[in-house]
């Protein structure tokens, strides 16, 4: 896209893009009546093989055994999936319980309780864990860890040490090379919602396509090489979705948010490559990995080859910088079942556990894979993002092998009017905020 200016034409910068979403597509999977035990087995096998390879560098002198092979008093290492027994976790059986109190069945946002305990499970059996090392408030059901300890007289496992998978291997790429190129992240546009101001989104589109501002602003906009929309782009009124037959007026109300989004997306796609990911509120499937939004929803934008509909989670490489991120369901679920000081801590934990969504399929909807677990992180990304959070938050974490990852929490645009700009050269982030109220 070119912009007229006094010094000549401004050219938008470009970056090489490669999609890595193939592992999240489920077109080739067939459902044959399998249950979730299959994906748990695949996950355990995958991560146990990987943890066994780390054991020689961690504690080479200790033997490893299965849960069934535990002997009382003998120190050993066991590897298995954690299960957290939570007192307050909502259960579908509560609906059928005899004593029904007047209060609603599912209330608290966070289901932690001081009585929660952890259990380690593998194919042969399960054992309750004791010891202050593994805090039940930090771990969730579905993480695979290696534990060092011994069986007590009571049949529990007394913990002495824990080994998490740690950050995966990262391909070395020198930072601070090349020129400034920016990636813009935005999420929670909520087009069609009564609380979102359409002017803010229009301002955003105009700014990044270079239609606003003078030479300096257009110069900045010309450095944007990619836009990533991380979920919840539309909001369809709940009143229309209660299963009743819709009249023709209501039917057009149902499709208006998507049509409005398509118009704005085609404005973006005309100038910049844009990736759109489905979120919780979008017209996509419920279970993770969410499949790409269908092209027929975007008749205007899909005509451009810069428009890409992507899966959630989404992984891609831009100029050899690896990106990985979700629209927020995995982190929000972690926030319900575990505790941390900020969302970035959840992000870091999922990376160190090498699993994007450990609570799937326990409390997070998931497709029942039989022979693989696509949420297992094989290669360490350079940028790990999550959408639809309350505020913009970012940090850098380092791994034991020299891995460096930039963590980004993308705020909801409809509430904050803020998008995130990330510089590919040095992975630094800053906010791009749009407002329409001025105190003067």
């Amino acid at each position, binding site marked *: 896209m070119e912009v007229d200016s006094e010094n000549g034409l401004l050219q938008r910068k470009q970056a090489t893009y490669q999609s890595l979403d193939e592992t999240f597509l489920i077109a080739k999977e067939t459902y044959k009546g399998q249950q979730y035990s299959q994906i748990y087995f695949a996950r355990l096998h995958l991560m146990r093989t990987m943890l066994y390879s780390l054991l020689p560098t961690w504690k080479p002198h200790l033997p490893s055994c299965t849960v069934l092979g535990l002997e009382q008093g003998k120190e050993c290492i066991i590897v298995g999936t954690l299960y957290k027994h939570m007192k307050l976790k909502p259960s579908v059986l509560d609906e059928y319980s005899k004593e029904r109190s007047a209060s609603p069945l599912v209330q608290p946002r966070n289901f932690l309780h001081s009585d929660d305990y952890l259990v380690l499970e593998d194919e042969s059996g399960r054992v309750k864990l004791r010891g202050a090392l593994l805090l039940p408030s930090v771990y969730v059901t579905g993480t695979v860890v290696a534990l060092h300890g011994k069986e007590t007289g009571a049949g529990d496992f007394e913990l002495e040490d824990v080994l998490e998978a740690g950050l995966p291997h990262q391909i070395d790429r020198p930072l601070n090379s090349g020129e400034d190129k920016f990636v813009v992240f935005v999420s929670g546009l909520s087009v069609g919602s009564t609380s979102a101001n359409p002017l803010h989104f229009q301002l955003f589109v105009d700014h990044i396509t270079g239609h606003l501002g003078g030479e300096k602003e257009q110069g900045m906009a010309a450095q944007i090489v990619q836009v990533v929309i991380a979920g919840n782009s539309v909001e369809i009124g709940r009143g229309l979705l209660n299963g009743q037959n819709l009249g023709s007026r209501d039917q057009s109300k149902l499709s208006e948010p998507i049509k409005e989004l398509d118009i704005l997306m085609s404005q973006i796609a005309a100038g910049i490559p844009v990736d759109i990911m489905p979120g919780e509120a979008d017209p996509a499937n419920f279970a993770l990995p969410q499949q790409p939004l269908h092209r027929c929803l975007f008749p205007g934008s899909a005509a451009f080859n810069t428009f890409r509909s992507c899966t959630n989670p989404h992984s891609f490489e831009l100029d050899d910088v690896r990106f990985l991120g979700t629209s927020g369901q995995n982190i929000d679920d972690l926030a319900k079942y575990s505790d941390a000081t900020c969302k970035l801590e959840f992000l870091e934990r999922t990376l160190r556990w090498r699993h994007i969504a450990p609570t799937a399929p326990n409390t997070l909807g998931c497709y029942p894979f039989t*022979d693989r677990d696509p949420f297992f992180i094989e290669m360490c990304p350079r940028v790990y993002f999550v959408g639809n959070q309350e505020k913009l938050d970012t940090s850098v974490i380092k791994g034991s092998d020299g891995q460096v990852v930039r963590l980004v929490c993308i705020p909801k645009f409809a509430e904050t009017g803020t998008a995130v700009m990330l510089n590919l050269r040095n992975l630094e982030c800053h906010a791009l905020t749009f407002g329409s109220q001025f105190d003067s």
Partner: protein
Amino acid sequence: MASTGVKGFFREKKKGKPGAAKKSNKSASCGSDVVQSPALISHATLDLQEEYDEKEEVLRQFDMNMAYGPCIGMNRLERWERANKFGLNPPAQVENLLRMEKANYLCLWDGRA
């Protein structure tokens, strides 16, 4: 409660093969032997050939072996291929039975659980 009822229902006999459940084996396989319901005994003779012969016995042992993961919801050939892909070295005999001799694809519990 349910397990004691089932144990009384099915007669179990040890196979006589040594090492059916060795400690050195990483997998703990439960091979319980057949499975003859008293209701099917007609005229005091045991109806052993119902749908179940030696080949099926091998396949059922494969189904029950925990090292290869859960068997419900997958057919036996897929489970064998998954075990192969994971590097668990499933017995080649099972593959032969499923591919060459066209033995029963469905697992032991198919339709029953």
